[in-house]
């Protein structure tokens, strides 16, 4: 059968392909993070201003970037699923959401732990952290909405609409939060006073970003496979698969 753009948009074909890709993504994630962490802890020097605590950057920034990227990815696939009635695209979007929320939480958690020793408080309402907090609310809203709707098709479509509306609003929200932050210049701490990055620091951070990206592929694909099995239950290919699994 000729390979086309749509070949893997069928659930059974996606299931088979992802079965091969997931372990590869894991391998990539492990290797990249091993190198990244080694560089981050054993090559990158101590920072002049912040000492050793800056090393949180090797997970804080990648997590923040992933949280933002995954929201766009989620909105994109949800929109594709809605526009082309492509069920698999909608399933992928649903699978992305929890991972995106996880990274957002991680960005906030590591941000707080970085903030306490650097600025003295567990939380500062600076523009980026506050925007990240609102992003978490956007993720939670999406997840809550799709989980509250029983009919999968309605859930997919409603989620897609919400995700796209959210994506359009993200720049507006970010801008308004920046505006708000500059107005209330009380504690004039700036998280932008991040360390002047030595090239080794930057390399380590980029490696960790790619490692997180590979991780995201692996987890999202695993979750998509679960959703595919849940939704396609009763289909012949699922029955065959299930029979084979229970026989083994």
């Amino acid at each position, binding site marked *: 059968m000729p390979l086309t753009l749509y070949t893997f948009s069928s659930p059974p074909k996606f299931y088979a392909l992802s079965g091969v890709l997931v372990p590869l993504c894991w391998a990539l994630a492990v290797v990249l993070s091993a190198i990244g962490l080694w560089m981050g802890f054993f090559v990158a020097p101590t920072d002049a201003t912040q000492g050793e605590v800056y090393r949180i950057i090797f997970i804080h920034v990648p997590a923040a970037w992933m949280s933002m990227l995954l929201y766009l990815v989620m909105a994109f696939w949800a929109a594709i699923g809605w526009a082309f009635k492509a069920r698999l695209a909608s399933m992928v979007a649903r699978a992305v959401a929890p991972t995106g929320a996880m990274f957002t939480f991680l960005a906030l958690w590591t941000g707080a732990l970085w903030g306490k020793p650097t600025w003295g408080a567990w939380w500062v309402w600076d523009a980026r952290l506050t925007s990240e907090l609102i992003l978490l609310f956007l993720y939670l809203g999406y997840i*809550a909405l799709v989980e509250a709707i029983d009919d999968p098709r309605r859930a997919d479509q*409603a989620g897609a609409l919400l995700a796209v*509306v959210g994506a*359009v609003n993200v720049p507006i929200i970010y801008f308004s939060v920046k505006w708000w932050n500059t107005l209330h210049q009380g504690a004039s701490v700036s998280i932008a006073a991040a360390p002047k990055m030595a090239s080794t620091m930057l390399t380590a951070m980029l490696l960790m970003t790619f490692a997180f990206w590979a991780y995201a592929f692996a987890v999202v694909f695993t979750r998509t496979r679960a959703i595919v099995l849940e939704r396609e239950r009763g289909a012949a290919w699922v029955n065959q698969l299930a029979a084979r699994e229970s026989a083994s």
Partner: protein
Amino acid sequence: MRALFWSILRRDLRLAARRRIESLLPLVFFIVAASLFPLGVGPEPQTLRQIAPGVVWVCALLAAMLSVHTLYAGDHADGSLEQMLLAPASPVALAAAKAVGHWLVTGLPLILAAPVLGVLFDLSGSALAALVAGLLLGTPILSLLGGLGAALTLGLRSGGMLLILIVLPLATPALIFGAGAVVAVESGMSPSGHYSLLGALLIGTALGVPLATAAALRISTE
């Protein structure tokens, strides 16, 4: 299209007039909720003046969201929503009419009550003016966004809370600019930037959200 808009608007206003107590509930909530804050933070006028813009705006936001939940529920329950969606006119007119109706019934009273709250919080005259002006521009935004949330959560069990969770992040820019205008006036700066941004937000919302709400209505009733 315009005929549909006016007929729905008139109908909703008539229904609200018949259920006067129900229609006034958001206003009562607004006042009660805002009055809780001094009980929580203490009666110091200095503190109250500082928190007033934020408190009034958040309470307005919550009052709007709590009352918008049933915007489409009644029509959905008795089947008239499906009828309206079948009409040749686009559901965008329906969405717009519902939002305007909600604003007239809920938003406008909030705007009128805000000065009273402002006095309770010891706001100066110019700050009160900024509060009212901001709410004038912002409450329509809240009604529009609330309408979208109501359409998305139509018929769901956890509807009310879910609606708030969905809409609140989207409403933060309006909150920031609206409350910020009062803060600007109080610190002697010009609020015109805030008003411009609110105005732009209102225009953008008015143009885009009814379309999204129309799509949401179709999604929720299919």
